[in-house]
């Protein structure tokens, strides 16, 4: 598993979540996070199609055609779960009642701008709940590889892709984790950055 950067990113992002938080998990790497949470993590997963209290995928005999997540995958509901309509679901999001949104991105700008719904020159016909989540969630964590499949930096000085929202991202988790150096980071970004005092630097 440690060879798969997506799983390493998900495992690290899981450590950013706190007991009692309501968390919305996007498609892709964020959806890998639950496997790194303890059963008693105290984290409530919200899915924007109308459920607070998402449980693990169903066994075959638990499969219920009325129970899916926003990625349209079958899920279960945990004890204490609540269902609601889409207007209430997005009132929760827009109203700041969802503590944390974890989602993927195509680009993140150095001021926290995020582009994660459209690629220039391709169709711009699917936005879903992305804009609502990054504007409304109290904290936005982006999980993504540091560079695109063609090697281009994804943490950039200025997003060139259409924005989802400006100045919305709080944290970015990439595969550059334990053992990465400041030079490693500098090599894969065009963004200006400072090094936090809490970061241990080794020669």
């Amino acid at each position, binding site marked *: 598993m440690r060879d798969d950067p997506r799983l390493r990113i998900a495992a690290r992002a899981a450590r950013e979540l706190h007991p009692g938080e309501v968390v919305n998990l996007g498609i892709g790497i964020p959806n890998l996070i639950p496997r790194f949470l303890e059963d008693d993590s105290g984290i409530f997963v919200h899915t924007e199609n109308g459920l607070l209290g998402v449980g693990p995928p169903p066994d075959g005999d638990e499969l219920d055609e009325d*129970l899916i997540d926003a990625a349209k995958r079958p899920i279960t509901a945990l004890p204490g779960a609540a269902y609601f309509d889409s207007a209430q679901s997005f009132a929760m999001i827009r109203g700041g009642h969802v503590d944390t949104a974890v989602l993927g991105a195509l680009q993140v700008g150095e001021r926290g701008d995020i582009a994660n719904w459209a690629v220039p020159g391709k169709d711009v016909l699917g936005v879903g709940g992305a804009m609502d989540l990054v504007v409304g969630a109290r904290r936005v964590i982006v999980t993504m590889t540091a560079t695109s499949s063609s090697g281009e930096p994804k943490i950039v000085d200025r997003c060139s892709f259409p924005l989802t929202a400006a100045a919305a991202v709080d944290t970015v988790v990439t595969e550059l984790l334990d053992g990465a150096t400041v030079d490693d980071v500098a090599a894969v970004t065009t963004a200006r950055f400072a090094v936090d005092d809490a970061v241990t630097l080794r020669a």
Partner: protein
Amino acid sequence: MTALALTTAEEAVAHVTSGDTVMVGGFGLVGAPLALIDALVEHSDATDLTIVSNNIGEPGRGLGKLLRQGRIRRGISSYFTSNPEAVDAVNAGEMEATLLPQGTFAEAIRAGGAGVGGFFTPVGAGTLLAEGKEERVLEGVTHVLEMPLHADVALVYAARADRLGNLWYRHTARNFNPLMATAARVTVAEAGEVLEVGELEPEAIHTPHLYVDVLVERP
């Protein structure tokens, strides 16, 4: 107290006429009124339709069937992309597309049903989806003016109804259905099961019967 006469899906879709705006419930196919959609595909000639639905079905399924018949002039959705044929239709100029953030889409329908003339939301400000829309800074945050959505006919699905038209939705099949039931001139409900009046717990009713005009039991 007047119970609604149960009707067939074929009769119910006669309320849809050419040029109408039709709201269709469902998140993908979950909670979509599939029998009503099939009746619209097979037993109605109404065309030039504006469809308000989170997705335009899937290829050859749900609203994807209506799309293949070329009867959708315009789609208002948050996620056309789940049906690649809808994307192709837009790119070929065969269908107009209005894309809204999903929360704005839901709230616009709620506003339409609740008599609200529009609302300001911070979602979408400064993005492509705010182009051409009025913006206003409220409490220091840029907001976008979004207009309510209304329809001629809403097609919704509920797991249970009673004979008055009270509706109860199940699990994540609720989604946009209760909103759409409020926002149309004629609301047609397809119910998985139709109960006698009094059999639905009053406090469990999600859509009170005054919103529902036509009731169909899913075959």
